[in-house]
């Protein structure tokens, strides 16, 4: 049985240069989204510096980290989830649950360290539960974490619907503590925590087996399984991590505002997803970096800062611009992945 595909040795590879299966070598395709976000950030920043007085002060940049610490921490966890090809809608609700619980327990006189460990455990546990449901019952992440969202938000409202002030000394001390960075530039501990989270997460993704397995699952979960990778463990761990990050975000929130409120963090999951997408984390999974999510958060934060500097612009413009950027970056991602294919 002769096949054409198995015949003339004369032609060899040159015979089918246009073979659609043969991909063109494009080493940098995967960096295009993150580089364009970086470029956007630089352009926005320099534009703002040129237009507004005092925008060039280092405190503007430093404050971006302070003001967006919670979002940053949540986006870090979300990055892991999205790289596996999943999504976590519950993070905003987990924040509200942890702030409410933190405030309630602290008001009840519990030791701060116990409260901290307890709420972080709770967030991780919610994440792990969702991960287990998603993996073992093959439930769509969207649905499973939507259930988690209702559950966590409901629990928070059940505990207390009012805003609860925190009078705990430790919490207050951390909240009021300032870290001097340079002459006249200070920041809060929560910014440092958020930055640390970014650095640790980036190292984990790039340099550990767990991190690489996260990418492998996003590339193809079936292949990952056939390659003998611990898919179940990794997937559950990813949602656990996201839950942990959300709980940590909740703690930072309660520190920053020295209060807890069940409606805190409403819709924050969507901001986190938007930041990831703008930062070049592919929603279909398998591609993206924590630094991308960081850039995404900085872009949205910078838009807000610019609007504040502008003074006469409606805050709604933040949302509008984020919406436009989201569209632009999704289309960009589509174009890049199509070229690779």
């Amino acid at each position: 049985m002769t096949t054409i595909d198995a015949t003339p040795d004369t032609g060899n590879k040159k015979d089918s240069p246009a073979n659609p299966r043969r991909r063109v070598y494009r080493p940098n395709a995967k960096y295009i989204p993150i580089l364009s976000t970086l470029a956007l950030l630089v352009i926005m920043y320099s534009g703002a510096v040129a237009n507004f007085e005092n925008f060039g002060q280092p405190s503007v940049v430093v404050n971006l980290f302070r003001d967006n610490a919670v979002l940053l921490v949540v986006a870090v966890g979300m990055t892991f989830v999205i790289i596996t090809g999943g999504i976590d809608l519950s993070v905003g609700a987990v924040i509200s649950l942890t702030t409410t619980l933190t405030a309630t327990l602290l008001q009840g006189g519990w030791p701060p360290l116990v409260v901290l460990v307890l709420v972080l455990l709770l967030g991780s546990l919610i994440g792990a539960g969702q991960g287990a449901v998603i993996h073992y019952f093959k439930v769509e992440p969207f649905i499973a974490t939507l259930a988690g969202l209702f559950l966590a938000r409901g629990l928070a409202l059940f505990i207390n619907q009012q805003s609860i002030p925190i009078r705990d000394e430790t919490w207050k001390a951390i909240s009021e503590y300032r870290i001097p960075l340079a002459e006249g530039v200070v920041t809060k501990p929560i910014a440092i925590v958020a930055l640390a989270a970014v650095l640790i997460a980036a190292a984990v993704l790039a340099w550990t087996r767990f991190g690489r397995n996260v990418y492998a699952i996003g590339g193809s979960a079936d292949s990952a399984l056939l390659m003998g990778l611990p898919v179940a463990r990794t997937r559950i761990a990813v949602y656990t991590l996201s839950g942990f990050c959300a709980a940590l975000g909740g703690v930072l929130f309660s520190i920053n505002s020295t209060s807890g409120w069940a409606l805190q963090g409403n819709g924050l999951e969507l901001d986190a997803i938007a930041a990831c997408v703008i930062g070049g984390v592919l929603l279909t999974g398998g591609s993206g970096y924590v630094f991308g999510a960081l850039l995404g958060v900085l872009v949205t934060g910078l838009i807000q800062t610019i609007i504040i500097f502008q003074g006469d612009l409606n805050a709604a413009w933040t949302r509008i611009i984020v919406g436009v950027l989201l569209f632009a970056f999704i289309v960009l991602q589509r174009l890049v992945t199509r070229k690779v294919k």
Partner: protein
Amino acid sequence: MGEQSLVLEMTGIRKVFPGVVALDGVDFRLFPGEVHALMGENGAGKSTLIKVLTGVYTIDGGEVRLGGEVVHINGPLQAQQAGISTVYQEVNLCTNLSVAENIFIGREPRKFGRIQWGLMRRRASELLARLDLDIDVSAPLNTYSLAIQQMVAIARAVDISARVLILDEPTSSLDTSEVAQLFAVIRRLKADGVAILFVSHFLDQIYEVSDRLTVLRNGQLIGEFKTEELPQVRLVEKMIGKELAALESLEDKAQRTREKVAEAEPILQAKELGRTGAIAPFNLTIHAGEVVGLAGLLGSGRTELARLLFGADKPDSGELLLEGKQVNLRDPQVAMKRGIAFSSENRRTEGIIGELSVRENIILAMQASRGWTRPIPRRKQDEIVEKYIKALQIRPADPERPVRNLSGGNQQKVLLARWLITEPRLLIIDEPTRGIDVGAKAEIQKLVAELSDGGMAVLFVSAELEEVLRLSHKIEVLRDRRLVEELENTSDVDADRIMQTIASGATS
């Protein structure tokens, strides 16, 4: 190679699925340093046997011995640890990761928990160099051809465990030079003492590379043979369990009906039709009752041409006439309404919906053309489906079975049935026989011949020249995305003649 040096010995393997005995007392053995081909029609039990070996299925009877010791394999990871690695037809790697990662993921060299990327890349390069592959291992896998991906998969498999390597249809998507490259790798591994289980539907390849073969049929062991002692014809007989008479009677049918066809009305005419980057402008006329074969290498533009005729892609030059009238096939739905059906080459991704039953898959196109507001009555559905299951000998003959549980050949038949019930005037079939076995191939070829006898025009796209020659009235030869020659399929046209055209591109 004495009996005592057996690497793998499977005896009396039995595997039962609800309603089907997939394997019934099958024996299989592997010696180190041999290539052992596993042969059989679709549904004969080859895949099941491989899945037993790789731990995807657990057996209901029999025993598996590795290096003389009884083992129970409970999953892919365990199979790997026991020394059995598999490379599948569809490359099961993560194409978003780099080449080096794909080879080492799960086993990355680490220091204090931190992956040593430099060391990993170096090792990957060394490993691939042993397979004569010199590529940038830090580039993502999806920047390379399928052939290279396949070799990377092999490199990974061999590096994990060099005892038993299973190659399941590794060549079905590769072109000539790539197959040659792969075989060179196989021979090298063989010389290193690796026992290789090889599955392929290309008999030539089996004879080129294998030392021994085991034939299965309907889940039963037919026998184990030395490849050199078993002529191809005998092998095929053992696989399908009947004489090849049916296949041979087709031989000169095409030529017999030739005159009749020439008088028939042209159904479809393409005039200088083309699409930049896909296929250069071409002229093509298809008559009622005519089988037109498209021959050419992988990537020569066969599929691209067919897609233009079905409205799946838009032409940017030329015109298309349907029964003399110019038409604009904006999308496949328009083409379907006009009586053109297209059976895709990628039956898994573009055609078959695995979760739906045989019946639902068959009914799909017909229902779509009627519109979803007018459901086909269930009784009529059953009637049609039963008729086609019988006519195409779809096995198992159970209309309610999910299609993904069917073998490749039977899935292909379901796909064909889907288009046939819409009673198209022009049927375009792209690679209907790829990856399916000899028996099913013959049945599908016979069917195509019968359809054309019944007046249907068929555009037949296939990589197998014999098949194109056997069925077609005329053959369009493609090369480098250009239709280079049209050959009337007269008695002096043979595979060599076509190959010459493909190789030289010269029009004589």
